[in-house]
């Protein structure tokens, strides 16, 4: 039985009478038990859900607490999305949800039902042609170790969808939620600016 719940009930009871308090102990317990029984009545989330990932609908069995990064990497085999910190402190797991950059390590999979998820695997054209951002990052030798790159790519794609012709400073601000331990920021920004040019 959760302590504060019981304490609060206890307090109310004391003000009434301690006889009431005596029984309210049992009451609260019963209440709590009954509450959990009710879970059946109004259930929590369904585990088997459909996800729209890179334009495809995938049926997945998802635990209530599961993060999107975990579902992608461990259930759907989409390992392009990297887990650098699992804390929303690095951006390696960045992907787009309805075109908006998100940290998938800090997003519950159940919160993206009925929304479209785009990961780095979904950028290439059917003919295998690189997305302008990917091509620009190659041309500018933007990645070094490459572990933060998928996140950088997705942040850049998100930016260009919202703002096709950003200034370098706007790009810098928009990319700032992605850490690069190799310190390739300058090259990534060159890439973003190049991609903006070629795609417009």
């Amino acid at each position, binding site marked *: 039985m959760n302590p504060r719940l019981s304490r609060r009930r206890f307090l109310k009871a004391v003000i009434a009478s301690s006889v009431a308090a005596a029984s309210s102990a049992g009451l609260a317990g019963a209440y709590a038990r009954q509450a959990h029984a009710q879970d059946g009545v109004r259930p929590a989330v369904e585990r088997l859900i459909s996800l729209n990932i890179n334009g495809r609908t995938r049926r997945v069995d998802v*635990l209530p607490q599961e993060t999107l990064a975990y579902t992608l990497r*461990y259930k759907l*085999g*989409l*390992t*392009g*999305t*990297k*887990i*650098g*910190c*699992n*804390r929303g*402190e*690095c951006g*390696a797991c960045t992907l787009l949800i309805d075109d908006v950059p998100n940290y998938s390590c800090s997003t519950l999979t159940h919160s993206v039902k009925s929304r479209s998820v785009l*990961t*780095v*695997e979904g*950028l*290439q054209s059917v003919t295998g042609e*690189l997305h302008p*951002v*990917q091509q620009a*990052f*190659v041309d*500018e*030798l*933007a*990645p*070094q*170790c*490459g*572990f*933060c*790159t*998928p996140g950088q*790519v997705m942040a850049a794609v998100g930016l260009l969808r919202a703002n096709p012709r950003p200034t*370098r*400073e706007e790009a*810098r*601000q928009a*990319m*700032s939620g*992605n*850490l*690069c*331990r*190799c*310190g*390739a*920021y*300058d*090259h990534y*920004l060159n890439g973003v600016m190049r991609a903006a040019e070629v795609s417009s």
Partner: protein
Amino acid sequence: MNDYRYIGKDFVPPDIVGKVTGKAKYAEDFRADGMVFARVYTSPMAHGRVTRIDSSAAAEMDGVIGILTADDLPPVEAPNAPMLTNTPVYVGEPILAVAAIDEKAAEDAIARIRVHIEPLPFAVDPLDSLVEGGPDAREEGNVYVRSREGSGFRSVKWTREQIDEFRAGKEPTGESVDEWSYGDLERGFADATVIIEEPFVTNGYAHMSMEPRTSMAYWENGTCFVYGSAQSQSFMIPGLASMLNVEQKNVILVSEHTGGGFGSKIAAYPMMALPAWFSKKLGRPVQLRITREQEYYVGSARVGFQGWIKVGFAADGRVTATDLFIVEDLGPNATGGDGSSAGDAVSIVYDPESMRYRGVPVLTNTTPRGAQRGPGQNQIAAIMAPIMDKAARELNIDRLEIRKVNAAHNATTVEADQGPITSAYMKEALDMGAKMFNWEAKRDQPRRNGNKVIGVGIGQGYHSAGSDGFDGLVRITPDGKIHLHSGVGNLGTYSYASTTRSAAEVLKCDWNNCVIERGSTAAHLPWSSYQAGSNTTFTHSRANFVAATDAVNKMKEIAATTLGGAVTDYDVADERVFRIGSPTQYMTYAAVAQRAIELGGAYSGQTWPDDIHEITQRAVQNIAGTGLIGVGKDTLRLEGVVPGLAVAFAEIQLDLETGKYDILDYVGIAECGTVVHPQGLAAQMKGGAVWGMGMASLERHVYDPQNGLPANIGYHQCGIPTYLDTPSEIRTGAVDLPDPQSPFGARGIGEPAMGCSVAAMTAAIADALDGHIFSRTPISADMIVNHVNGRPQSFKPLQINNF
């Protein structure tokens, strides 16, 4: 400029596309049938002895496959770090591992395990351990001494007075265990017009590579397959084999991509071997994904310095003498080296006429330390730059001039033995940087604007950047493909690829016909250098040159025997061996390869030179008969230290009210011989610059001395520089003068690229604060605010691990 075909030209490294598409596989992206997931239980205690492990509840849980403890593993002799331990010497040291069907089950199990640990005395500040009666970080002692008389642990103590005097900024009088010197120090100081004496501190801080050191392993009839995160490739094998108690031929390391290392993944490390042992016990593949927090614990960190330095300058700015004393904050199981390397760096970058180095590497119960980008060189670079500027002021010399007066050149003699260097053009680098940066104008501009002050600084970086003795291996197959076998790791510098281009250069072949064999030691890789110490470019331009030359000679021999004439009559071009003067007489590389197979012997790798490493021998053995083999050990001339040098010019605008500053301009100049890969070089110079900026003011290493707890276990607390803490644009350049001892004149640069940056930053900060020297890194906003407001700093003198 050279007229090479590939050297000095940009190219698209074969692995980069995978990085932008997410197809590049890192250790934790691999899966194997029946693979289980492991997690480690880490020590909550800075130093203790495990008395009892109660894991019964965990073992019975659903999904739990097995538990591994130190007792399941062969003992490891200190100071080497064990895979699992029963006597943890730092918070976060792995004590046991649990394997389960998924990570959650493994963590649920970890949460149910009770480990009883008897606490032992600990120290998180070297001086707290060095002082008489102070605790030793290990029961064996607080210093590990390496010496000819025999290495081992000792308990080194100073008297309280000696510690207090050191803290008070006086020359340390306590025992040092490491010492070297050259020249006449006394005379050097006697000759000096200006003498500057400073106590200093450089906090260590974590490598925190983006990719935590995940590893997956399984066994297949006696051979262990390890999918690990490694800076190096072939170089990992000997260490890994000994950790696994198997022969080198029975270990295969797959490491196609590595999410950063910066010195923390140079050679085999315990967490790489752990899953292999676990897999052996469970009989199924085991993956151990290291979490960010655990990466902080086991991922190693830079060695911290608590030091004292005294530098004498002649009237013309020449450094006459340098006396350097360093107490190294070594963590629990490193054996030191940063301190002495710092001394070496000083002897090269500032070329003092006389010098003495003394040091004590003290063990502390903090996270393990290891080499980190410019280990030693970069700490001292940050301390030296403002000292040079202070001397320049007192001698009324320009800050650029005083550096040029002491700049390393081809005739400079270096280090304790005052030996030669292969080549050095520091003066040229300084001039080039000054020009690009517009030094005079920036130096003389109005500095104060309200509460904002401009500061400009010059930094110099150094690291030995190359060695010899490694092997090269190329293979030409009958399909006309040229296979360049590269056993160096893939850290993200692309030097694994750019160095193979020296072979292509020699073979005069089309780069599109070249295939780089790499990524797995099963890909028949030669014995190669570790990808660290700015080593790859120099070392493997040479090794690949040797192998390619061997291939060319063999092709000429084959052509001569096939088409007649003498070997000297032949030359190569356009993937043909042709008779000089009669271009109709030629064989294509494809044909030569076919012929080589028929001829056998050394041509197709049936035999090989006996001076090559056993790993290379095995590689040749395995590809024997598949084509023409060019192989050889690098025995080219190498006399003297190979210096990687870099200079940086920085302009900052410091806000006196907040202690924060913006970097308005940054110019980094590389002095690394011939430029091999311009884009790659720029990337290294800029990455190094960012690292320097982090070290200068942001990156943290905080320990609670009362409980031995680290604060910076994640990216947030570590303070890794972001897009908005670094300049939007960083300018770079290169001197591009060839080194005589490298076939194409190339040397390495990775580490100096950072040293020059942190030095330029500390110098610029001092400049903005009218020459005030903090003699400490990082210089955080609070330190600047306290200084500007005439408040004492909050930390006590020489306190370390405080930010």
